[in-house]
Every structure is written in structure tokens, then in C-alpha cells.
């Protein structure tokens, strides 16, 4: 049973429940207390010790039910068969003659598997499958493509080769029995397949998800397929949560250091200035203030979408975000993003300024004219765009003024470095005024870029 519980921990990890070694020790202690005889109590005990939130409880409950429900070796066939076998002798004379001949005296020299199948002992078969799947280390299964190899491993471990030989032999000597064995074998294969499928559902979930996320993280944002957009949004939300957890730690970090004399004296006035309570100088950390300028013209729109989604889901970390979208002219989109769901907001932004040919020069002019006052020495300005200005005046001088007014100016470019400066790309001219220029084409690069920006405020 101990072995089983350990396998269950692995299955639980597969179901997305984080089971640390310490938790598994606790769970083992709890199981030792309640015993394993009563399944509902066992379920409660495991849920109490392992799951740490309501979602995890649900996932773990499902996982428990799946794990401890043995797949039936053969759905209905055996019921009928067994009745035939055991009661056939005195009930159904017509069909029993053949099977009775086989049943009455199991032929000598058959392999253990053949005998087991012929004797229709369901529990024995289930137990044998379980131990064989243990021997084939079914819990290592990771991908659905491995189903075949694990099935055959289990079948081999149970002695399929011997069974085949037996079958060949029987076909010659006792065709009726051979026929029975063949049906039994089919059902048996099915049972093994079910076991493997269950194993896959239990152990491989985490791995498959990781793989899919990994691929998604490195896929170029601008060219992802429509059906992946929802998944990508979920991924971006995950990234946002990670960044929040990392950077939303309390702001009062330096508790001890220099004595704050003024506050110490004031606080201890009641004791005649005898300093019982000390007050220390604290270093206040600024929350990031971000002004984002996003190109939403054709090629870059998708990346801007995900970028805005990410920035605006960082409320706890980022104090103040103002977002501006532009293609040929520039508008303030902060309110739209705050008040609407991501899908609606993006649709509205696109209908207002999207799909034009981009004109960086006039967009920068718009920004300088109306919104220059949003910049303070604590602001990080992020420009997201490919800097392809259709050979219009880039107005790099405005970018210089923006850079002078702000703490940092970061340019994120979805294009690869190789393409910068070729054709109508103005990247090299803009780059002179930027604190950092980085490529930002995939979710992973996006995460790194935003993480770096926020980290400079810590």
C-alpha cells in the first residue's frame, strides 16, 4: 500500500497539485493514523494534507477517484462467460458441452497466463496487470505516443509470448478451447490498454502541459494561430501572476540600519526621552510608473495586444500605467483597457487607430503635444514597435526629449536584430536615445523584458 500511496503522490503532481516531500511525509503520517481500510476517510485525509486550495481539492479528488478505480479487466464478457463456466454444467446443456470439456480439465502444459485467462479469475488478472505495469514502470509514461510501447511492455512482462505458443498448440489440438482463449485474449488486451490509458491520464498530464507551454512560450507572438490566442492569453496571465508574486513584496525593506533620531525621540517622549522604542530609517522603494507606447499597425498588433494585457494585469506591482496606442496617430487607451475585457478592449482600440500604416513621426508629435506631462523622472517609457515608419520623418528628436524627461526608455522590437536598419526601419536612429533596446517576439522574451523593467525599481 505504501508503494501505492507513493504512486498516488506522483499522480497528484501530474494533476497539478504541488506535493512537496514535506507534504508527502505529513500525508503518510495521516494515512498511518487513519489506515487504508476505509476509502472515504482515506480520501478525506489525503485531501486535507495535500491540497491547499479549493481548486486543488477538486483536482485531487478527481485524481483520487481515477487512481483508485481499477479498470475492469473485461466489461461484460466475463460475467456471461463465468456463468457459463461455473453453472453451465447443470443449467445450459446446449452450449456447455464444448466449454465444459475445456473447463473441466485445463489441458496440461499451458502457461500461467493462459490458465489465468481460462479460469476467468478477474481479481487475479487485475492484480497481475497491476504488478506487471509496476514492473514496466508505467508511472514513467509521459506522452500519448508512448501508449503502444508501454502496452507491449506490460503484455511481454505477463508472458504474451508463451500465450501465443499455447494458442498455436491449442488450435491444432483443441480448437474450441483455442477459440475461447482468443476471445479472452482480446478482452485482456483491452484491459491492458485501459490500464495504460489510465496511467497516461494520471501521470502524463503535467508533462504534456509543460511541453505545450514551452512550445507556446517560444512561438513568435505575431504569427500564432487563432486557436492558440486563448491559450496564449492564459499563458500571459500566468506570467503576470509570476511577476506579481516576485515583485509585489512589501515595500518597507530596510528595517534596521540608521537610527531615525527624530522619530525615536518623538516615540519615547512618554518615558522622558529614554529610548525604549527605537525607530529606524527606512528606504522607500518606488513603485514602477510605466508609460507604454504601442504600435498597433498590422504586423505588430498581436504583440502589442499581449504586451498590453501583461502590463495591465500587473496592478499589484505597477503603480501607474498609462498606455497609448498608435499607427498613424496616437491616442490614450488606458481607460479602455481598464474598463473592458481584454478582447473587447483590443477590438475597440483596433477600430479606433489600428490597421493604418504606421507613422512614427506624427505619432510622436501627438504624444509630445498632449501627453508629455505624464512623464516624470521616475517613469519608464516603453515603446513597442518595429520602427518601420514608411520612409516618413522619424522625428528622433522627440524621442530624445522623451528620453531626457524619463528615468528610462526601453524599446521592444518584435523583429529580429538582423532586420533592424534595413528597408524603412529607423531602429538605429531611435536606438541612440534608448536606454535598452531588445528583441521581443515570444512570450518568453516578453516576460524577461517586463521582468527587467520592474526589477529596476526594487
Amino acid at each position, binding site marked *: 500500500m505504501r508503494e501505492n500511496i507513493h504512486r498516488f503522490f506522483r499522480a497528484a503532481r501530474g494533476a497539478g497539485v*504541488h506535493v*512537496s516531500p*514535506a*507534504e508527502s511525509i*505529513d500525508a503518510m*503520517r*495521516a494515512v498511518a*493514523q*487513519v*489506515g487504508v481500510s*476505509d476509502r*472515504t*476517510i482515506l480520501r*478525506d*485525509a489525503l*485531501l*486535507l*494534507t495535500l*491540497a*491547499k*486550495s*479549493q481548486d486543488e*481539492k477538486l483536482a485531487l479528488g478527481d485524481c483520487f477517484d481515477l487512481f483508485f478505480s481499477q479498470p475492469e479487466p473485461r466489461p461484460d464478457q466475463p460475467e456471461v462467460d463465468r456463468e457459463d463456466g461455473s453453472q453451465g454444467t447443470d443449467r445450459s446443456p446446449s452450449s456447455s458441452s464444448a466449454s465444459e470439456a475445456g473447463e473441466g480439465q485445463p489441458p496440461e502444459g499451458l502457461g500461467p497466463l493462459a490458465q489465468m485467462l481460462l479460469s476467468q479469475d478477474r481479481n487475479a488478472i487485475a492484480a497481475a496487470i497491476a504488478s506487471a505495469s509496476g514492473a514496466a514502470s508505467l508511472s514513467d509514461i509521459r506522452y500519448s505516443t508512448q501508449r503502444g510501447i508501454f502496452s507491449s511492455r506490460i503484455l511481454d512482462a505477463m508472458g504474451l509470448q508463451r500465450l501465443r505458443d499455447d494458442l498455436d498448440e491449442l488450435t491444432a489440438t483443441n480448437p474450441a478451447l483455442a477459440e475461447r482463449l482468443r476471445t479472452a485474449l482480446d478482452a485482456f488486451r483491452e484491459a491492458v490498454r485501459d490500464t495504460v490509458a489510465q496511467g497516461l491520464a494520471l501521470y502524463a498530464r503535467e508533462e504534456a502541459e509543460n511541453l505545450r507551454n514551452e512550445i507556446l512560450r517560444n512561438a513568435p507572438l505575431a504569427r500564432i494561430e487563432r486557436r492558440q490566442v486563448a491559450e496564449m492569453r492564459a499563458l500571459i496571465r500566468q506570467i503576470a501572476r509570476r511577476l506579481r508574486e516576485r515583485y509585489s*513584496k*512589501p515595500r518597507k525593506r530596510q528595517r534596521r540600519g540608521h537610527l531615525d533620531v527624530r522619530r525615536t525621540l518623538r516615540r519615547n517622549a512618554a*518615558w522622558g526621552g*529614554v529610548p*525604549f522604542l527605537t525607530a529606524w530609517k527606512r528606504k522607500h522603494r518606488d513603485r514602477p510608473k510605466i508609460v507604454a507606447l504601442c504600435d498597433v499597425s498590422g504586423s505588430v498588433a498581436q504583440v502589442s495586444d499581449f504586451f498590453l494585457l501583461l502590463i495591465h494585469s500587473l496592478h499589484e506591482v505597477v503603480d501607474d500605467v498609462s498606455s497609448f496606442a498608435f499607427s498613424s496617430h496616437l491616442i490614450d487607451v488606458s481607460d479602455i483597457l481598464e474598463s473592458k475585457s481584454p478582447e473587447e478592449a483590443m477590438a475597440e482600440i483596433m477600430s479606433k487607430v489600428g490597421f493604418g500604416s504606421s507613422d512614427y513621426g506624427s505619432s510622436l508629435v501627438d504624444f509630445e503635444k498632449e501627453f508629455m506631462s505624464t512623464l516624470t523622472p521616475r517613469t519608464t517609457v516603453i515603446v513597442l514597435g518595429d520602427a518601420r515608419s514608411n520612409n516618413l520623418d522619424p522625428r528622433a528628436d522627440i524621442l530624445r526629449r522623451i528620453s531626457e524627461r524619463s528615468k528610462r526608455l526601453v524599446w521592444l522590437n518584435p523583429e529580429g536584430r538582423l532586420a533592424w536598419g534595413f528597408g524603412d526601419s529607423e531602429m538605429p536612429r531611435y536606438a541612440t536615445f534608448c536606454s535598452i533596446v531588445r528583441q521581443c517576439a515570444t512570450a518568453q522574451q516578453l516576460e524577461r523584458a517586463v521582468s527587467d523593467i520592474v526589477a529596476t525599481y526594487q
Partner: protein
Amino acid sequence: MAEQKPSTAIEAVESGLAAQGYIASRQIATAVYLSQQIEKPILVEGPAGVGKTELAKAIAAWRGMKMIRLQCYEGLDEAKALYEWKYAKQLLYTQILKDKLGEVLGGAQTLDAALDQLHDFGDVFFSKEFVEPRPLLQALEHPGGCVLLIDEIDKSDAEFESLLLEILSDFQVTIPELGTVSAITPPTVILTSNSERDLGDALKRRCLHLHIGFPEQRLEERIVESRVPNISQTLRRQMVGFIHEIRSLDLKKLPSVSETIDWARVLVLLQASELDTDIVKDTLNVLLKYEADIEAAQPQITTFIAKAARSNVFG
């Protein structure tokens, strides 16, 4: 106790709590049993008013232990939760002992010798005598164990959580001037949370996690029966059925068990024998705490009463 079969022991917990008027579901009883056996705190989560705090009270009453309650709020810190030095007393004692001090130091020939003597003397003021124990320290020092209820832990700051870790895992605290204070008898610790913010993993890891949701209809009937014994069976069924219908609505705040009990009391006071539209309309403000919720529920009342009555027939 350990010799008992776990299932009987869990039933014993259930009936023990029931004797205190707390009708526990099997999950709750299992959690209480386990926390006692493997000495782990229970973290109880769930919506407001489902009896999280009551659970701690019931456990304390059942085991005949003292309950020490620590109500968490923003800004709660060590000095209010764990211990504090009695500054005024320290100051007073120094004043009173001033002359004595002079005597002690008077014998010293040099400044160094005086300083040495003062050093021997100094620790007196940071001894157990001058520690004011706050709830957490009280709970550890209580002989014979107690039930420590840390209420609404989600309202406290993240730093406070870290402060709790040592107590929760080892039942001890470290006071820099005195050393480590270990529990005489490990207290039964219950933490409650309304999930206002996510608690840290470190805290969650040290606890059994128990989620108390709204009870099933049968269970809720039993709860009402135990709390408001003089309500008739038909009315009890009807009102619980009605509340379950109300909970299916999309409301700002769903009525929880405490509201059910209040409502049962009100109905008994008004001597209602069964639910009808008028009496429900008049007393809806006991169940629903927002004007918007009441407005949303008003038009449905008649259908809900009918449904509750029907389920009554079949149930």
C-alpha cells in the same frame, strides 16, 4: 484513544462536537481527528458565516479547554500578538531601585568595576517578570493545552504570517532576550481565512487545509435543529429548502449558515407555522444584507416557496 479504530474515533469527534451544538460533516470531523493525531494546525477556509470560528469554540468546549483567540487585522505585529516588555514597570523599578543601585555601585573603586557590576545587574530587567504575554505566548504557556484560534489570518500582513511559522510547525517561539519558549502542551491551533488574499505556501504547507462550504440540505436541517430546537419539522424543511433555492441566485452575498439560524429564530419568534409569501417578504432582510440582493430575490419568492414545498413532499 490510539487503540480505537479511526472510523469510530472520527464518529466520536462528530458526536462530541454535536454535543456542543456543532453539527460537523465527516470532512470536518476527520480534520479535527487528524490534527489531534499528527499535531498539526487546521487552516479553515470558506465563506463568511459557515461556522469557522464556531468550530474552534466547539472544540474547546468539547475538550474542556480554554480558548485563546487572536483576531488578526492589518498592522498586527509581534508586540500585540506574541509578547511585549512591560516598559512602564521596567521604568518604575529602575526609579525605585535607584538608591539600591547607588549602593551596589558605590562599592566599586573604578569605572570599569562599576560597569562590571552593572552588567550583572542589567539582565534582571529583561527577565520573565517583565514580559507581558500576548495571545500566542499565552497559548504556549498554558498548562494542559488550549485551543488557539487565529481568526481571519488573511486580514493580517504577509510579515505576520512568517512570524507564525515557528509556532505552527514546532510550537515554540524565540524571544531574543530570553531564548526559546516551547509549548508545555502543544495547543490545538485553528486558523481561519475568508480568502481575502492568498496565503503564503509556507503557511499552507504547515497546516491541514479544510474548506467549509455551504452545507447540504440534510446537514443544514440538522444544524438548525440543534440550534433552534423549538422549530417545527415542516417549517425547518421548507425554510432550508428555500435558502438553498436562494443560494442558486447570483447574489452579492449569499446567505450562510449563521443567517439560516437567525432566520429560523425570527420565524419562531413570529410564530410562523409555514412559509408564505408575506412572511418571507417581511423577513427577507434577515437573510440578505444588500438592498440589491433583496430586490433581485423579491420576484422569485413565490416560485422558491413552491419549490421548497415540493421538495418537502418528495424529500
